[in-house]
């Protein structure tokens, strides 16, 4: 869905997304990194279970909620990636509140 401008490549670092090692660009937020890495969605809705992806990228819509290093409901668009970060997508109805 997105490609990176060649000039914007930057330094890479590795995070884990649902246990899978993913190379991301240092300086990206978690939400941007997930979109850049081709993740189609980052959580499912706790109401219907429908998949949701980052929507506003500015901290107001709360669609990009993910679990970061064990802390649930972090706004992925506000959290910069760090080397070794453990990111988990949230599955709404099955593990509400994570």
């Amino acid at each position, binding site marked *: 869905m997105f490609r990176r401008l060649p000039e914007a490549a930057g330094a890479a670092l590795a995070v884990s997304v649902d246990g899978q090692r993913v190379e991301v660009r240092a300086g990206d937020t978690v939400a941007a990194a997930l979109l850049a890495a081709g993740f189609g969605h980052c959580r499912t809705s*706790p109401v219907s279970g429908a998949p949701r992806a980052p929507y506003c990228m500015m901290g107001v819509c709360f669609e990009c909620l993910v679990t970061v290093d064990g*802390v*649930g*409901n972090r706004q992925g668009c506000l959290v910069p990636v760090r080397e070794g970060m453990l990111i988990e997508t949230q599955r709404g109805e099955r*593990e*509400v*509140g*994570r």
Partner: protein
Amino acid sequence: MSTTGDAIVIGGGIHGCSTALHLALRGLKPILIEKDHAGRHASGVNAGGVRQLARHLDEVPLSVASMELWERIADLVGDDCGFKSEGQVLVAETEAELEGFRDRVDELRLRGFTQEELIGRAELKRLVPAVSDTCPGGIVSRRDGAAEPFRTTQAFRRKAVALGAKVLEGITVTGLARNGSTWRISTSAGTSYEAPVVVNAAGAWAGRIAAMLGEPVPLEVIAPMLMITSRMPLFISPVVILRGRKLSFKQFANGTALIGGGHLGRADLDSNRTELDLAKLAESARTVWELFPIMRQATIVRAWAGIEARMPDDIPVIGPSATSEGIYHQFGFSAHGFQLGPGVGALMAELIATGSTNLPIAPFSITRFGSSR
């Protein structure tokens, strides 16, 4: 030109709406006057606890009577009000506290009340597996539960209207005057209403109504705070309350958890505004953190406070005015009036229609504040 009715109820909380409904059930034509909208304040934004557990001994008979109405609430108001009876548990945090609970349960038995049951560690753990292992037991009231407060108040209002009550919202009572055997009530809308009976169910604003009648009461305006969390895995069905520290804790079927228990914010009667006290919210959060380790992952999504009246002895004022004939008081429920709403509305209607009630309401008489006036 005044509109006339059989009774005027001031206040559209659960109590005013319930009294209006029960008056209508008795074939009377009540007029209810609410300054905002029904359920706008404490009745609509409380924690929804339907609790006989841990009540003041004087309130127990009223609470038990009210519980009977809760158990057939759908028949009464045409809506189940979201009432679910999954019990309420009073958790003892220490052995000493548990001993005190034992005395209470014994005392209740002596008076013939059996709804409260002392439980030990094993039964507590069975009922509330998530509770911290350090808690030695508690009291359970198994028929207790919780309902949806705004929905409940609205259901009472709707049913009252369906039975012929007039409900006027967005109108403030500005004056009461006696005219022979009737009371004439003037309002902010410039309208006036007449009836032989007036019920003061104005909650936090009831002190103002009492003052208009020349019958001031030592009513304190309080703003009990509540917080709600993000959805959590379902881990608890009964409502859990503490006595030593202030906490009431309830998880909804959708996973969100409601944290209350009586920590107070600030309220302003004129603007309807409440302001939260973050230090006290932090105390609530700490209590939950310690009692339920699973909640350490939770996020607080919202916090708010209702506006409520508290009396110095923490029990309500129920019954006729000591100074003005035809005036009845029904306020000061001190942040635990929601469960009492159905029952006290019924007894108030009985009192108005027949002149008496079998329920013991003497402890709630407004005359008990005589010396403070």
